């Protein structure tokens, strides 16, 4: 059985437990909302709210560099820290956080395999509602890696003939246009369907029932051997709002080691609202 391409970016719940108080290890819970964080979190963990803290709340965009620096400074994180992210919904939003940390050049960021549910359901893992004491820092971004992000222009280039893999990680019903978005979602689009040429590999294909990632061999079979992704070509992953696709982006780039993988955070809520763009169903 082969290993993940970069096994160091994934840590187990046991590893986190053993390193809870190790200096230089900062644990961050990233949730779609921090309701659950408030009810109980890993001791010492900081909570990031994806909706209000991990994106610009006025214009639609990711955090700007100064916003990112401010967020991390207030969370007491330094550039040389080992940051371990975990969160709700099988780490979707933690994976988005991982992408953002990498985009702004944070060297050592890792995901806790299985997320908050795995930790919660293991008897030996402590949970607390005590507020975490934070000593603010002066976080400074040293490099940006915008090559990890796909923009609409990149999608247009693919439509115009660039040879790239386009992976739609939404559910089959969203992909085929049966629904625009899962029921009850506020972020939606005017049209249903998918970007022409995209292959549908739902994000959940990458995880086992307990939310941990499948083995390297299984992931290789799903993404590479079954033809969804041509490994020699650049790859773009997208979903509805860019969080599920961060999860698949993480799989392709770090667990399978593909060279050039980008997350299209505009995703269907950008593309499906555009006038005049081709749509497949």
């Amino acid at each position, binding site marked *: 059985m082969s290993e993940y391409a970069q096994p160091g970016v994934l840590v187990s719940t046991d590893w986190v437990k053993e390193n809870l108080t190790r200096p230089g290890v900062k644990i961050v819970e990233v949730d779609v909302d921090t309701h*659950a964080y408030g*009810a*109980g*979190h890993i001791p010492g963990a900081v909570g990031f709210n994806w909706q209000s803290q991990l994106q610009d709340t006025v214009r639609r965009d990711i955090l700007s560099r100064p916003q990112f620096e401010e967020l991390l400074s207030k969370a007491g994180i330094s550039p040389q820290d080992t940051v371990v992210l975990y969160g709700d*919904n*099988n780490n979707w939003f933690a994976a988005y956080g991982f992408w953002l940390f990498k985009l702004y050049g944070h060297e050592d960021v890792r995901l806790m395999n299985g997320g908050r549910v795995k930790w*919660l*359901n293991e008897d030996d893992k402590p949970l607390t509602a005590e507020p975490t004491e934070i000593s603010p820092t002066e976080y400074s971004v040293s490099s940006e890696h915008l090559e990890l992000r796909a923009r609409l222009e990149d999608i247009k280039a693919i439509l115009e003939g660039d040879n790239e893999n386009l992976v739609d990680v939404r559910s089959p019903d969203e992909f085929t246009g049966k629904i625009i978005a899962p029921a*009850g979602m506020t972020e939606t689009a005017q049209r249903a369907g998918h970007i022409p040429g995209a292959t549908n590999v739902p994000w959940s294909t990458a995880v086992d029932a307990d939310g941990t990632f499948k083995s390297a061999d299984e992931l290789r079979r799903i993404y590479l051997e079954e033809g969804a992704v041509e490994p020699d070509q650049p790859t773009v992953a997208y979903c509805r709002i860019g969080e599920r696709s961060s999860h698949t982006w993480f799989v392709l780039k770090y667990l399978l080691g593909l060279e050039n993988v980008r997350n299209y955070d505009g995703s269907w809520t950008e593309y499906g609202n555009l006038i005049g763009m081709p749509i497949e169903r």
Partner: protein
Amino acid sequence: MDHDRRVYDSIMELLPNEANPSPMVRLGRMSPSPEAFPLFAKLEWMNPFGSVKDRAAFALLKDLENSGRLPPGRAVVEPTSGNTGISLAAVSGLGGHAMRAVVPNKIPNEKKILLKIAGAELEVVSDELCPSPGMGDGSINLAKTYAKAQPERYAMPNQYENDANVRAHMETTGPEIWRQTEGRLTHLFLSLGTCGTATGLARFFREKGANVTVVAVQPSAGHDVPGLRNIAQLDVTKLFDPDLIDEILEIDYELAYVRALELSRNEGLFAGPSSGLIYEGARRVIERDQPTGLGVMIFPDNVFKYTSSMARHLPELAEGLEPTAAGVAANNS
């Protein structure tokens, strides 16, 4: 406590047990084989807080109290959107404990209001962020979070895992039925949610050495019958023991509503949709196998809290018109 005169010092004295069983009513017009196979409905809505869940709620709280996990002042937290929440809130409140119900955001308003009336604190979570597989972490995990992170403030009965839920039925429902049927029971028809009722009753009758066929009736996939789980949804509960169930029947969930209406009209049994489904399962087994013996159906609750569900499936009801759904007839015989 005086069951003869039915005069009590506290509503809690009305909780069902062998001395004060929930009533059983024999079906008349809707009984498929009334002579060879008398069919009874055990009316769990006659319990003090309106459903079969009174039994589990009481047993779960007693279990927490007896094991020292629920000292005075500590609250109860439980993921529940329905009858368990109402019963737990009532029983907890009478025992001096607050009750926090973690509920999915898709639950109907009337359920939220009922939980509030019963005294619960409500915590509404987005339980379906994305179609399965890969649902949100859900109300179960949020309730667990409270209990694990704040154990001095919250205790979680955990109806899906706590064997007290099963024991409640071994100690009350089982002996009641045995006494009420004078040991003549041959078939038991029920549904599966937490599986406390099915597992508890099946164990009771097995330990008794009674030869009782246990038939579980399940709604088809995509159903919206409150409180029930179809086969694919059963992994959420740890109380399901397939070895104890003789047959699982899956039935088109629309029939739950149609049969509930028929039970009201033909039998005067104001049964809720899950009871309607259970009746349909019993009817099919009786017509298929032509058994001799005696059947009991566990009717979990009545129809009063499901008027909007009923109207969604039988829309004429809300218009004051006669439902035209197939099979609905005023004089179904």
